């Protein structure tokens, strides 16, 4: 294929320059975390500041992990436990309900769908005070269940699954299976589930990331440091007086590193997940 590249498809040099610049800006804050966390505060405060990593990182990391009143490792475990639980639950509930919304004809389906979509418009702060009162009555305050239970299902997850199942599974296949005698649960288990494995994984990732980065609700409902998630624990690294940038940035780096490592493996899938979910036009 020795086709000449049509003029309208050529990429000018300055486009690569723009992409390069954005790449730099996207990465720099992470690099900077590490630079500050591995240098002395003096090296960062001088002008111009040190732009290369120093040798202090292990020392700072040790300080983060042993900081008084902060249970960093515990917070990391808490965040993981909550994230995994939320991700698994959302995938299961959303897949089943999304399948019903996309493929089953039942009375009230249209209304229920509209209802779910309409609630997506409501900002989450609206219910936060009552949710706290409810958590109190259910004795969930200061437990990890308080983070898991309200996040078991989301309107977004169900709606997303409905769109995916509608787009990826042709009605003819389901019809053929049911005419051959497969029951609805059988159709779901043997046909729908295998074909939405990829999308389920992406939805699970979204849920995991949202849970990992949530801050408003955990900071309200968690009270003792051994129950904190990473986001809340990070705010504890602030000394009472003055600032300790190295300590704070060290904590920030340690709290971000797991996500970056995860991203190396799943980044491309997340990209396609974001793009699949976009409104096309």
């Amino acid at each position: 294929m020795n086709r000449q590249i049509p003029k309208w498809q050529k990429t000018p040099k300055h486009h690569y320059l723009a992409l390069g610049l954005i790449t730099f800006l996207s990465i720099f804050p992470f690099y900077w975390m590490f630079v500050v966390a591995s240098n002395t505060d003096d090296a960062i405060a001088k002008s111009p500041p040190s732009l290369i990593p120093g040798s202090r990182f292990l020392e700072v990391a040790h300080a983060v992990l042993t900081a008084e009143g902060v249970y960093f490792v515990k917070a990391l475990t808490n965040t993981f436990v909550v994230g995994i639980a939320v991700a698994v639950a959302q995938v299961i509930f959303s897949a089943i309900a999304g399948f019903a919304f996309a493929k089953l004809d039942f009375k009230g389906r249209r209304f229920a769908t509209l209802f779910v979509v309409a609630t997506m418009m409501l900002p989450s702060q609206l219910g936060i005070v009552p949710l706290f009162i409810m958590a109190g009555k259910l004795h969930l305050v200061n437990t990890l269940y308080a983070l898991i239970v309200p996040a078991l299902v989301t309107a977004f997850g169900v709606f997303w699954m409905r769109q995916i199942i509608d787009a990826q599974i042709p009605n003819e296949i389901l019809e053929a299976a049911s005419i051959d005698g497969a029951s609805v649960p059988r159709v779901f288990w043997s046909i729908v589930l295998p074909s939405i494995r990829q999308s389920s994984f992406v939805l699970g990732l979204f849920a995991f990331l949202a849970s990992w980065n949530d801050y408003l609700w955990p900071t309200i409902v968690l009270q003792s440091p051994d129950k904190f998630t990473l986001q809340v624990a990070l705010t504890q690294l602030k000394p009472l007086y003055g600032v300790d940038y190295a300590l704070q940035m060290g904590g920030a780096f340690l709290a971000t590193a797991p996500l970056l490592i995860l991203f190396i493996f799943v980044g491309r899938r997340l990209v396609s997940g974001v793009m699949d979910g976009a409104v096309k036009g």
Partner: protein
Amino acid sequence: MSLIKAGKGRRKAPLTPWKKQQRKPIPGVPSLNGRWGYPAIAPFFVIFLIFGVAPVVYSIYIAFFKWDPLGESEYNGLNNFIFLLQDSDFWLAIRNTFSIWALSTFPQLIMAIGLAAILRNRRLKWKSFWRTIFLVPNITSIIAITIVFQQLFGRDYGIINGLLGLIPGVDNIDFLEGVIPSHIQIATMITWRWVGYNTLIFLASMLAIPDELYESASCDGATKWQQFRYVTLPSLRNTITFVLIVGTIGGLQVFAEPQQLAPDGGSSKQFLTLTLFLYNQAFLNYKYGYAAAIGIAITVIVLMITTINFFITRKISGEGK
């Protein structure tokens, strides 16, 4: 030139006919027993009603009370709302929230559309590398990022002031105390986090535009800019609406960034946002009823903006049914 003309007269001739078949109701599969639908949605619906819908209804109830978390609660009529409208902090929070929203949304929109237009090119090298790297800011811990930007924006030793200082005649800017500078700082954190994500959203909808349109526009002598203006932009209308609505809902929820800069929203409350205001009233002052009223006010604002947005889009797109 026919295509470009069609672009200008788009009220009569829709330029994007290939999108028309969207929005049909999804038909179910007739041979599957529909009654299975109820047990299938039941688990989701029960949890959703308890933890998603009930709090919303409950908060409307609470908003009519002087609600003391420990003692007695008494009926308060509309007083929470009346007091809210007279509370200068509320109006300050509205001002701050919208200023931060505008400072983050519009640069973000322009950058995201521009970047998506670059990424759309099918001959671009390292396509998936760019897409992936642009999503990195979106996945990172929000508090961690606030800590980094706070340091970068520091008054005395921050890199950003260091760079600004290279321009002769520019003094150090206090990105914490100044009203607009503090909004710029928060807006930058939000923009940094969401530009890449929105780029991918726009890219997805640009990739749905058939290549033939660009090809024929190019044959007709349209410049790159004209192609962008008359082919790309008109077909992004729905996506722009979507991004704006999602951005508005997100913009009204800004909380972690200002709270990390200063829990009370700054020395003159210069970056007290609506959600931070709600949080402080509820969980520092224990005024649950009042906080619930703030929540309702935020919701009313969201609904108003969504409606306005909807009508504007309909007007612009003209042919919408």
